């Protein structure tokens, strides 16, 4: 038996099996979660569910305002966080030298990523809702979510920029390009797929988080759609929370249907990103 364990071929098989099983375990919860949601929620999916206002104290009708609200919030988050995140990633990766300040910034980013989302909610309440007097609004909610996803975008963009081979930069400089020309034409285009990944990850987080929007934008129920960025809005994760805990006698299918829509939106965003990444990968390879 001991001899068997010392046999390199046997070791090889054991290690392979072990690693393969570990990987398989990752798939299991994903499949189960999606299967559960689809099994229980797909029965309520209908055109009306997606496009109608809720009725009868949200026990019937659709979830249209929550879909609209979440879409606005995601868009607002990206409009705010994407440029700032990408610009600071460019600064950190291409311009800054390693010194006390950049280390402090890096530390801040790491810590920002570790802050619990409910703390962002309180922060957004204090800064955007109360101090800046935006009130509970799409603007306040987007900004709060934006601050939350900034570290994701900065980290992903920075890694994408740094994975662009150093040769590209040297080639560009050797052809007389300035630093900005080099970044713009020899680095950024090749970092785009990675930056996109960061954007989609943050989009998924912004769409799915409940705590940051709890005090800053989310409405229990609104009879009409938001008209401006200073209006409150309903949002899918909060609506799900409300249906599950705050409204008595809701059909279980309604909750799972809402979850299904939320997961579906995120999956669609991921798929779109994957297609775009695939397109880049075929076109540019090194």
């Amino acid at each position, binding site marked *: 038996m001991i001899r068997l364990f010392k046999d390199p071929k046997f070791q090889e098989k054991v290690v392979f099996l072990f690693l393969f099983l570990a990987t398989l375990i990752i798939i299991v919860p994903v499949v189960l979660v999606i299967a559960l949601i689809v099994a229980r929620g797909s029965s309520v999916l209908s055109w009306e569910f997606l496009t109608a206002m809720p009725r009868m104290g949200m026990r019937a009708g659709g979830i249209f305002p929550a879909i609209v609200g979440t879409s606005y919030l995601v868009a607002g988050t990206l409009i705010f966080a994407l440029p700032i995140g990408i610009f600071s990633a460019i600064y950190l990766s291409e311009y800054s*030298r390693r010194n006390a300040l950049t280390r402090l910034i890096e530390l801040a980013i790491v810590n920002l990523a570790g802050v619990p989302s409910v703390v962002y909610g309180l922060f957004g309440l204090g800064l955007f809702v109360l101090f800046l007097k935006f009130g509970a609004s799409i603007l306040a909610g987007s900004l709060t979510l934006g601050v939350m996803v900034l570290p994701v975008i900065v980290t992903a963009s920075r890694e994408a920029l740094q994975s662009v081979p150093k*040769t*590209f*930069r*040297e*080639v*560009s*400089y*050797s*052809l*007389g*390009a*300035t630093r900005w*020309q080099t970044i713009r*034409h*020899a680095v950024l*285009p*090749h970092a785009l797929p990675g930056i996109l990944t960061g954007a989609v990850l943050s989009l998924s987080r912004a769409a799915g988080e409940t705590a940051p929007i709890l005090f800053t934008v989310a409405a229990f129920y609104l009879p009409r759609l938001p008209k401006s960025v200073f209006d409150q809005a309903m949002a899918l994760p909060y609506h799900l929370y409300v249906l599950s805990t705050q409204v008595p006698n809701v059909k279980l299918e309604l909750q799972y249907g809402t979850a299904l829509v939320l997961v579906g939106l995120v999956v669609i965003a991921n798929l779109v990103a994957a297609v775009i990444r695939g397109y880049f990968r075929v*076109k*540019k*390879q*090194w």
Partner: protein
Amino acid sequence: MVNASEKIQVKELSVTYDSVPALRSVSFSVLEHEILGIIGPANSGKTTFLRTLNRLSDLNPKLKSSGEVLIDEKDIYKKWNVFQLRKKVGMVFALPSPLPISIFENLAYGPRRDGVRNKTRLSETVERSLKAAFLWDEVKDRLNESAMKLSGGQQQRLCIARTLALEPEVILFDEPCSGLDPISTAMIEDAMRELKKRYTLILVTNNTKQAARVSDRVAFFLMGELVEIDQAQKIFTVPKDKRTEGYVSGRYG
């Protein structure tokens, strides 16, 4: 006393990397329309020297230089605009380094950054440069394909052409054939012999035979010092310095 045919004058150039000397007070001249071969073992300062000439060394804050380098009698640090300098002093890197864009766009990269927008002018530049690098016939029908699809030797000629597109006067070759097969190497060497009619070439190489084949003059670097510079023939047959003799006869390095 300035000799009119001295394209580059190097005066007591010293470079340190993280305060470790990489070049120690090197002085010599590069003549117009010659191929100057630079040979020497690893860490002898050859590549550092090359990167100083087009100030690509500026990118590395750990590199500090003193002394003077004059190109066309103008100090590269004081009189030259660094971007103009890099257009005048082209560089071909050790490994083929096409950008992952089309062949055409690789060639047009330099001129575009230089502000050329005119399509016809860009096309003319691309064609002229590819012809000068003996690549035109092989790629003329697929200029819009990715440059990454070319073979290593083609890629290296593409890089030469890309440099030529900026109409440089000096071209630096940093071990341009280190990753190439003998046939591709021969093609690059042929191209170099042709190019020296119009340009001044500096070739850093680990391959002493290659230096002997293509160089007019050869400089031997050792531990950051210029040991000897002379006609290629003399360096390889009757070197003045014992260390040169040892290196070219393959006793060390």
